[in-house]
């Protein structure tokens, strides 16, 4: 079906191999997904290398952009985690910039949206989940297990509360990854579908075109918002691990 229909909204999510690499029976090929991850990385580095190459007191646009993003994440981390969170700033900041650029590069026509694949976002969320759990146990010892049994709960409710709290804890990486992936997938599909309408309707296509422009603005907002939500939730999980009593 996809072959004979030139307008295929799902085609943009297809993975294609650029360089076929096999290592011990495992497929580690360089795909278009990997390529756009490299692009996101390059864009992040370009922003900071170019932005901070000329350190002037009155900043130019690039410098201001890099300083604003730095301040934005630094403030978020301080608000959510406090001074203890400063050690994790490099990770949180890289995470935000990478997801931000992945989302934004995906908005350019003929590109590939890395974050529209669940496995990519789940790899992020799973890594964060494991890291946060290890940090929690390192900082609090076995006392970290208290998060599964909140204080002030009668002992006879424990068999009910503890499984619920454990499931709630385990659902964190799933909700984190599904949220980002679903937003990107749905948004880009809708954009492609309306673009398809515009082509199919010919002269009458201006109506979906107007809608497409509005949707595109919404998608730009969502791309930034989802990167922000992913990062702030990481901060919240980190805070839970560092201060389990609150």
């Amino acid at each position, binding site marked *: 079906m996809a072959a004979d229909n030139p307008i295929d909204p799902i085609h943009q999510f297809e993975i294609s191999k650029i360089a076929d690499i096999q290592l011990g029976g495992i497929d580690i090929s360089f795909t278009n997904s990997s390529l756009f991850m490299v692009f996101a990385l390059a864009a992040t580095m370009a922003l900071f290398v170019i932005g901070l190459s000329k350190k002037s007191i009155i900043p130019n646009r690039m410098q*201001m952009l890099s300083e604003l993003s730095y301040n934005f994440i630094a403030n978020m981390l301080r608000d959510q985690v406090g001074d203890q969170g400063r050690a994790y700033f490099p990770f949180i900041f890289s995470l935000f910039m990478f997801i931000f650029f992945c989302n934004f590069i995906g908005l350019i026509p003929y590109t590939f949206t890395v974050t529209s694949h669940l496995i990519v976002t789940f790899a992020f969320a799973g890594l964060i989940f494991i890291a946060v759990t290890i940090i929690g146990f390192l900082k609090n010892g076995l006392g970290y297990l208290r998060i599964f049994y909140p204080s002030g709960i009668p002992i006879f409710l424990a068999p009910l509360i503890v499984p619920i709290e454990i*499931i*709630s804890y385990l659902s964190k990486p799933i*909700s984190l990854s599904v949220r980002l992936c679903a937003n990107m997938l749905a948004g880009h599909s809708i954009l492609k579908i309306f673009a398809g309408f515009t082509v199919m309707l010919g002269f009458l296509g201006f109506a979906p075109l107007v809608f497409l422009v509005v949707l595109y603005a919404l998608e730009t907002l969502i791309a930034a918002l989802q990167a*922000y*939500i992913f990062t702030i939730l990481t901060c919240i999980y980190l805070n839970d691990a560092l201060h389990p009593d609150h």
Partner: protein
Amino acid sequence: MNNDANSLENRIKKAKEGQSIEEAKAPKPFGKIMKVVVEIVAAMAVGLGIGLLIDNYFNTRPIFTLIFFLFGSAAGILNVFRVAKSLQNN
């Protein structure tokens, strides 16, 4: 000329600062709804998954699947309460 550019840049800077702060403090309704729905579904899925694993291991289907699905639903509601609380605090 130079003065003009400076004032423009300052205005852009101010506008940008205002934007980022507003976005940070109040997520848009769409984002809020998306957040809440995903929390419920994720917790249910985890509960169902654990239930199915236990049932497959002990061959007791469907007892634990049912129990853990209920636990998962409860955890979903709990998640929603926590998200709502954190949104209110912000």
